């Protein structure tokens, strides 16, 4: 088989999977059947396209094949008087914004329905919207393939038996429902950005899938300020990917990164999206504030020349609206950068009592950094040891070990 065809199928899979599956679900009303048929359509492309050539509109070809397969199967089932598919309501519900009348959005909103657990939402989104195999989804969340297969099956069964509708939400629910979708995309992104275990700090496959999802959402809901802000956040954070780990696989802090390696195009795109989002929404949301913080870093010429006053101000807003121990930690670090290590240590102090941060290596690492800056080497070494005991990511461990040996000498 020619490499061209394989590449064309791979590209179509990446670009068209969601559309092929989403259209087939609407037509046949059965999520699992549509999934099988979409899978078969791509397999068929691998055998048919080498002879026929790649069709001018691969997505339309694949959708047609998947729909035909689904129709045949439904006919066969009807003939055997098997139970009819359970999935419901494919029609546009009254009141749904016409702009949301898109099969891919229906699919995304169904996968991210609030009646499903967050981990099920993320797994379903990767499997059904991004088209990852069950094995790939299992790897993303560091569980075995049978465990993930069971999780996916259970989630699909709940969609069918509890009759989670296959449709975009009504206007009054849209904000909350988009919020859930963005949480899921953000979860996929952060899972890729900082793998909790294992040899690699970054999981580019997951980062790319999260960015694909963000771009698709932005394409389908261009006027939604939160969608734009979340995409901006992902672009601004992932723009630093190439500079985050050095040639030896060592983790580099923002302060140590070679800023010339940052992706200037991604930063420009992110900033433009953020500006557009802020213009649309008078009260910036969580993602807009986080993106704004990332933008301050992205536009700073160096770590020391960062506008720390602005970073602290943005963290204050974030903490007021969305209090979390991790945000409080980041705010304390920024405060220390603005006002010096003893101010930073004082700001970190109350956080060490937070049970949520008790096992969080970054708290100890941040304390260690400020202790270093204050010249308190013995205390710093102890804090690095504490952080080491709490982290299981190999790249981060190596980084902490290096810091530890440098403060000991």
């Amino acid at each position, binding site marked *: 088989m020619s490499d061209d065809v394989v590449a064309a199928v791979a590209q179509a899979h990446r670009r068209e999977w969601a559309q092929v599956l989403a259209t087939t679900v609407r037509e046949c009303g059965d999520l699992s059947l549509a999934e099988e048929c979409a899978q078969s359509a791509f397999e068929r492309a691998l055998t048919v396209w080498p002879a026929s050539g790649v069709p001018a509109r691969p997505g339309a070809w694949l959708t047609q094949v998947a729909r035909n397969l689904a129709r045949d199967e439904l006919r066969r089932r009807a003939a055997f008087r098997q139970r009819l598919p359970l999935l*419901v*309501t494919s029609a546009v519900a009254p009141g749904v914004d016409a702009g949301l009348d898109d099969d891919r959005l229906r699919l995304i909103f169904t996968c991210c329905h609030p009646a499903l657990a967050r981990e099920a939402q993320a797994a379903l989104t990767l499997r059904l919207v991004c088209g990852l195999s069950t094995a790939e989804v299992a790897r993303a969340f560091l569980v075995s393939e049978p465990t993930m297969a069971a999780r996916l099956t259970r989630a699909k069964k709940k969609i069918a038996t*509890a*009759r989670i509708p296959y449709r975009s*939400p009504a206007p009054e629910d849209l904000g909350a429902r988009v919020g859930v979708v963005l949480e899921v995309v953000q979860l996929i992104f952060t899972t890729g950005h900082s793998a909790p275990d294992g040899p690699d700090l970054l999981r580019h496959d997951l980062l790319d899938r999260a960015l694909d999802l963000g771009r698709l959402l932005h394409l389908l809901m261009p006027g939604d300020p939160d969608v734009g802000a979340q995409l901006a956040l992902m672009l601004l954070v992932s723009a630093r990917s190439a500079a985050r780990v050095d040639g030896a696989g060592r983790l580099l802090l923002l302060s140590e990164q070679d800023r010339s390696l940052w992706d200037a195009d991604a930063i420009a795109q992110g900033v433009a999206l953020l500006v557009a989002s802020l213009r649309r929404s008078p009260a910036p949301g969580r993602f807009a504030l986080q993106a704004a913080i990332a933008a301050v870093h992205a536009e700073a010429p160096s770590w020391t020349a960062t506008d720390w006053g602005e970073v602290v101000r943005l963290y204050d807003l974030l903490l007021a609206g969305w209090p979390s121990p991790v945000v409080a930690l980041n705010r304390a670090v920024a405060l220390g950068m603005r006002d010096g290590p003893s101010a930073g240590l004082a700001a970190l102090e109350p956080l060490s009592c937070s049970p949520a941060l008790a096992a969080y290596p970054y708290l100890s690492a941040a304390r260690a950094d400020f202790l270093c800056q204050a010249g308190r080497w013995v205390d710093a070494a102890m804090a690095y040891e504490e952080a080491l005991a709490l982290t299981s990511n190999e790249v981060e461990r190596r980084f902490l070990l290096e810091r530890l040996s440098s403060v000991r000498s």
Partner: protein
Amino acid sequence: MAKYMLLIFGDAAAWETLTPAERQALEAAHADFRAAAGPRLRGGEELESPSVATTLRARVDGELLLTDGPFLETKEGLGGFYLLEAGDLDEVVKLAGMLPEVRAGHSGVEIRPVVDHG
């Protein structure tokens, strides 16, 4: 259309110590819920406290064994139920969100699809 059971769980002690005014507000909210559900409502009752429940099992030899108390000995028990008929889960969630037990703090509403034997 599909049927859903709404199971209202909560702290029986909290229900038993409602003031008459609170009780009246609770019943008014249920009346609003029933009015909103209209013909979709297929049944529903408030249950006596779990403390007066009797649980029936059989021993290995087949002899009936009665236990004083609910099947699950938990602080929160089943306080009542509704049977609804609706098109999909979103419709049920919208209606069930009107139930005062959703916001009372000690209680909540579990939505269970009913098996369709049709």
